[in-house]
């Protein structure tokens, strides 16, 4: 069933995306404290990555379908010719 009622379509903040990408939230927060504004730039970059991945997926879906029936998957046996000379 295409149950989409529970699926969040909200674009996540950079920090939350960092957590989703695998970096524990505490570590992401520590990194932000230590590196100042550079950490913010990193998270924005991760957010871009998510959006890029999502966009790439949408693109693949758009081009994924080729209409037309597929022939029966029957392969004729291929003879192996042995040279006797």
């Amino acid at each position, binding site marked *: 069933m295409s149950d989409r009622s529970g699926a*969040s379509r909200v674009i996540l903040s950079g920090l939350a995306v960092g957590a989703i990408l695998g970096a524990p939230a505490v570590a992401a927060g520590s990194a932000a404290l230590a590196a100042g504004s550079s950490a913010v730039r990193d998270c924005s970059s991760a957010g871009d990555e998510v959006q890029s*991945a999502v966009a790439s997926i949408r693109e693949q879906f758009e081009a994924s379908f080729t209409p037309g029936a597929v022939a029966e998957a029957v392969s004729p046996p291929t003879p192996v010719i042995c040279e006797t000379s």
Partner: protein
Amino acid sequence: MTRPAPQAAPTAAQRAAWPVVIVSMPFMVADRPSIQLGLLQAIATGHGYAARTLHANLDFAHRIGGETYRSLCEQRGHMIGDWLFSVAAFGDAAPDPDGALLDDVSAGLDLAGESGTVSRDQLLRIRDFDVPAYLDELVDGFPWQEVRVVGFSCTFQQNAASFALARRLKGEFPHVVTVFGGANFDGEMGQEYVRRAGCIDYAVTGEGDVAFPELLAALATGADPGAVPGVVCRSGGTVSACAARAPYGRLDESPSPNYDEYFAHAEALGIHPRAGRRTVRIPFESARGCWWGAKHHCTFCGLNGSSMAFRAKSPGRVADELATQSRRYHSFRFEAVDNILDTAYLSKLFPELIAAGTTYDIFYEVKANLSRDQLRLLRQGGVTHLQPGLESLSTRVLELMRKGVRAGQNVNVLRWGQYYGIVISWNILWGFPGESAEDYRRQADVIPHLVHLRPPVGAGRVWLERFSPLFTDPDSGVKERGPERGYRYVYPESFDLDKVAYFFEYALADPLPDEAYAGVRTATAAWREAWERPTPPTLTYFSAPGYLQIYDGRRPGAEGTYTFEGELAEVYLACVDRPIGATAVRERIGRRLPVDAIEEAFDGFAERGLMFRDGSSALALALPAGAIR
């Protein structure tokens, strides 16, 4: 009341003076033997009685024709089979000599069953001519004077025919003692039948494994049969009921059912061929009760009235019985009468059957939470047909039913059952308290994506059965109920139908309009039609590492191939074995995609009908191409 069972064991001479015949009347199906008869015969014989069975249902099937008989067997909710024997059973007290049932459209008769159509005139002819002639032949053609006890096994539509024969026997062979039992006599139903039907001497309410031989012993020794636990009888002007024992637990000690008379009888009538390998499904019992129902009783289930506790034969005992019965009856096809498969058999019985190299063809009822590996094991072990009780494609409705499975698991059983060549029989049910129109709109929307899987046998309103939580729980959401309409055309006015009915009509406190189900009804009909096409619908995938093609042949004229590469292919393949969430998929593919991107992929696949979404989980719908593995 509970009274001590008779203690004195009968002597051999006393037992010899009480020969027994156990009878199965219409409308027990004719294409396989009755396990109730086979088991009770073996039990009585084991206790030293001369006991035999009489599948008298076969003679009636032979008389009116196999297809007509089968069609009537399918009508069990509407009492048409009982109605056919009502006049013979109750004489002038029968409530419907004029055949008003056949004109009562609200009785909901559907005489155009899967096995053919039975016309109104044909039904009247059967009732007025075939039934009396059949009973005459039955009374004249069996040596009733040689038996003392006639037992009747009654489930579903067997009551009126059994009462009709018992009435004749009591009139013409007064020495005969009649004993009734079976699911129709469970609880207060049995007491009311004994109270109202003069042809019943004793009834066994509940399981007969112990009560039936104890009743025979009481008869043989002259003890009080009414003192046997589980036995109901008339005493003076009242009905006496001795409380039944706990459900029988020593199933390994049960004898194998004796079906000798069934096969001889069916072959003599030409119902089964005399020569060659038999294809009859031999009924066997490996377990009783329901381990799921004992914990979470499904709200609509009225099976196992007083015997819900789960009990199972040991795997070795089951394997031995299959081997014994196969040799004895020359068939390799079996039908388990269990309500639910014992999960212990997955690790013991089926590996044993595989190791032994058996080639059985087995039917089982199961819970729908089986994995791909378990379905493969079952198939290798000989299971070709399952009834998993799917009931719905909505997790929310399944929760209302207390089924203990999700819709994604149901779809997965359909998928892997099909892949491994196991027929899955199932239905879609509706009419549950708390359901919403949205629950059915979503099911109607998803059904076109599932047409490559086996369609449901039927889709319709759930029946209200005695013993089900919908019946017993005052807070179940059922506002009012009454015995199913057909009962009033079968039983005389003196019968309290509230006490004898097993099926009930009902109204919910907050019902949905019938239109709410129209989408599911229409989509299901189209699904079944699709399976009747010369080329059935398919949805098959072909894969190589990082590369996936899905051939969609579900809709004629709209066939095509989906091609996915890289991570998108991996996401799909991660959802092939079972429903799985985005976080788990992410782990499976080496964390190379964020969860949001995987959710996006789930939605993209679902929009194209290539995945089934069940809450946060997703399940690939296509089945793998190539060799079965």
